[in-house]
């Protein structure tokens, strides 16, 4: 199983000697519980039956004056442990953002781009800030995972994160592979529209709003989208994601297991789609 949506923000070995990261995690990402040893992250994956996890940083230098884990830190984690797949983050407002992204991919070996428009405060259809990054991702052949919908950070603004804006992006960049995180909740229908229409648009299951992961997954995937829609129209465009540590991986895996999915779709969500995307 591959968890396509984790944040390496509470790893004690990273946080304890990095006051800037401590501030970023508390004040911007807004997690307030004690950091845990890296060993715990790996044990959590083991306990959940997850073999690999995608690590997502957020560079919000212009919006909030910080980076919520740097590309270098992500690369170091991924370099030391093959179970981690590192994504890059660059500040879209930085003048040399595309060059930074290219450096993170080619120089640090990172495998994709994470954008969080709610925290980075840019519009997904902003041709000045966002278009060059989409272009670079297309040229490099890497996927981009985009936070859409509710941002739990009190300084995040969901108005920047509407999935419908990605329709135009999909039209402009037909080769760009995009992942709409959190199924875009609460704008699930917008996310569904874009994913149904464009085969290079994926949805991840890291839906975190209320109830257990099982409750949220059942409500969004089974009741709002419909399992028959997933089986018929989106079997190759769904990715398992937990949003760890906002939700634990174990319970998200169990929530997925509780859904009455066909074995082939289950396997695609758990592993195959992610493997193809990576």
């Amino acid at each position, binding site marked *: 199983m591959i968890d396509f949506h984790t944040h390496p923000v509470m790893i004690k070995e990273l946080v304890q000697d990095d006051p800037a990261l401590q501030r970023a995690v508390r004040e911007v990402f807004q997690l307030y519980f004690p950091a845990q040893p890296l060993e*715990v992250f790996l044990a959590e994956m083991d*306990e959940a039956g997850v073999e690999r996890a995608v690590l997502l940083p957020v560079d919000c230098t212009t919006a909030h004056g910080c980076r919520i884990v740097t590309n270098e830190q992500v690369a170091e984690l991924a370099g030391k442990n093959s179970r981690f797949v590192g994504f890059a983050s660059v500040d879209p407002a930085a003048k040399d953002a595309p060059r930074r992204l290219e450096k993170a991919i080619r120089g640090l070996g990172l495998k994709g781009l994470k954008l969080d428009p709610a925290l980075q405060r840019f519009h997904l259809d902003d041709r000045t800030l966002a278009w060059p990054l989409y272009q670079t991702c297309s040229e490099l052949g890497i996927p981009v995972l985009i936070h859409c919908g509710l941002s*739990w950070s009190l300084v995040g603004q969901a108005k920047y994160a509407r999935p419908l804006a990605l329709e135009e992006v999909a039209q402009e960049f037909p080769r760009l592979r995009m992942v709409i995180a959190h199924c875009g909740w609460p704008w699930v229908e917008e996310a569904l529209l874009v994913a149904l229409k464009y085969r290079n648009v994926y949805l991840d299951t890291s839906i975190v709003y209320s109830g257990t992961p099982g409750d949220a997954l059942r409500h969004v995937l089974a009741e709002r989208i419909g399992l028959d829609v997933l089986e018929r129209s989106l079997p190759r465009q769904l990715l398992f994601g937990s949003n760890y540590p906002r939700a634990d991986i174990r319970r998200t895996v169990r929530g997925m297991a509780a859904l009455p999915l066909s074995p082939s779709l289950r396997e695609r969500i758990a592993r195959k789609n992610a493997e193809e995307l990576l």
Partner: protein
Amino acid sequence: MKSIVKRFTIVTHHETELIDITPRVLAEVEAAGVRDGTAFVLSLHTTTGLTVNEGLPDLEQDIADCLQGLVPDGRAYKHARFLHEDGQMAINAPSHLRGALLGFEVFFPIEGGRLVRGARQTIYFVELDGPQERTWSCRYWGNSRSASACRSEVGFTGEVRPDVHLSVGVHVAAVQSAVRDQEQLAHRVQGEGREHGVGVEVVLAVEHGEPRAP
């Protein structure tokens, strides 16, 4: 009176896990130097437990299975929401409730410097929401071993004034004649103390080993 509080950190690797901490508790009792008193063992968390049972793998599994059966995962708990204080989802109600069933502490008397414990009693730290880094603590509280030893071995019966305290440490080999010599010394010191209105506690630490040459 002696009171020692110690904290111990462990990393758990499973969602439910019984970890035998008995050797550590026993070792710490030995090191604490408490002769007669109590050992309190506490978890510092709300999704863990402490319990005592026979140290057998099959029983460990039965305890884990029973807790999961008594508090099933799938029930509609109210504690299943975003917790703003943590910035994460609070979706571990079963872990809290299982912890409530077990309790967070165990205690044992200490007698003669040893834990009063049944031969089959194993002390377990129980992880109920792992993997996580966890902390448990021990408080050893009671009479210090050396002061008690003084009273019984030296035969000291004099009244020690609690407001004035003087300790005299005497180390001797475990040879009866040497002990008798030190008893005399102890009584003399004690008598001098009384003359001056000073309570004297004589601490006689007996070293076991070869007798010293006279």
